[in-house]
């Protein structure tokens, strides 16, 4: 199942605070505001969810993969998303279809109700600190 914008609008409408048209406009506007901020190279931080930022990429020499001709790729700006630790932990610890997806035996079972631990900490793996 894929969640689409229409599904999100339906969810917003089902909260019972807005008309369908208002819900649709508000969702569209929210996305526009995020896009506008990123177009202005502003970071967008939604705590507990993640952070979008714009990175400038330098010009580089590349090749036309079809002909092999060298060409210079111009500098560009790209949007990147970093999920928050909280979101990463929720996705990681979600029950999955195959039990083999579970973490190796070395990882202690996540205690219920406690703050979600960073993956690496729980599994004794490489510790990578999130931003928030």
């Amino acid at each position, binding site marked *: 199942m894929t969640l689409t*914008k229409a599904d999100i609008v339906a969810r917003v409408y089902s*909260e019972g*605070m807005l008309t369908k048209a208002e819900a649709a406009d*508000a969702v569209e506007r929210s996305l526009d505001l995020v896009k506008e901020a990123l177009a202005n190279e502003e970071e967008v931080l939604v705590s507990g*969810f993640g952070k979008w930022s714009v990175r400038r990429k330098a010009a580089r020499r590349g090749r036309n993969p079809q002909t092999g001709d060298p060409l210079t790729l111009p500098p560009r700006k790209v949007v990147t998303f970093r999920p928050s630790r909280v979101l990463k932990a929720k996705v990681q610890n979600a029950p999955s279809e195959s039990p083999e997806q579970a973490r190796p035996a070395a990882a202690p079972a996540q205690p219920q109700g406690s703050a979600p631990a960073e993956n690496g900490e729980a599994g004794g793996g490489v510790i990578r600190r999130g931003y928030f």
Partner: protein
Amino acid sequence: MNKSQLIEALAKAENLTIKKAEMVVNTMFGSVEEALVKGDRVEIRGFGSFKVKDYDGYQGRNPKTGEIIDVGQKKLPFFKVGKELKERVDQE
């Protein structure tokens, strides 16, 4: 821009109360999160799509101590930038 600034900007732009704007923003990110936790994809035209990527386990090293450790399989949320947003950001 953070979430409360987004909520304020939305309230102003759509002439909504802060409470309503807050509900919209929270419901929006909440439903994306819920879908990802279920392992579902999210597709928002013009903005981007989210999905959960599966990564195999590998042997890594603690960069501080050099100790070899097994990094288990992991699932991480992944965002792919949509065409419109990609082009818009690169233009301005």
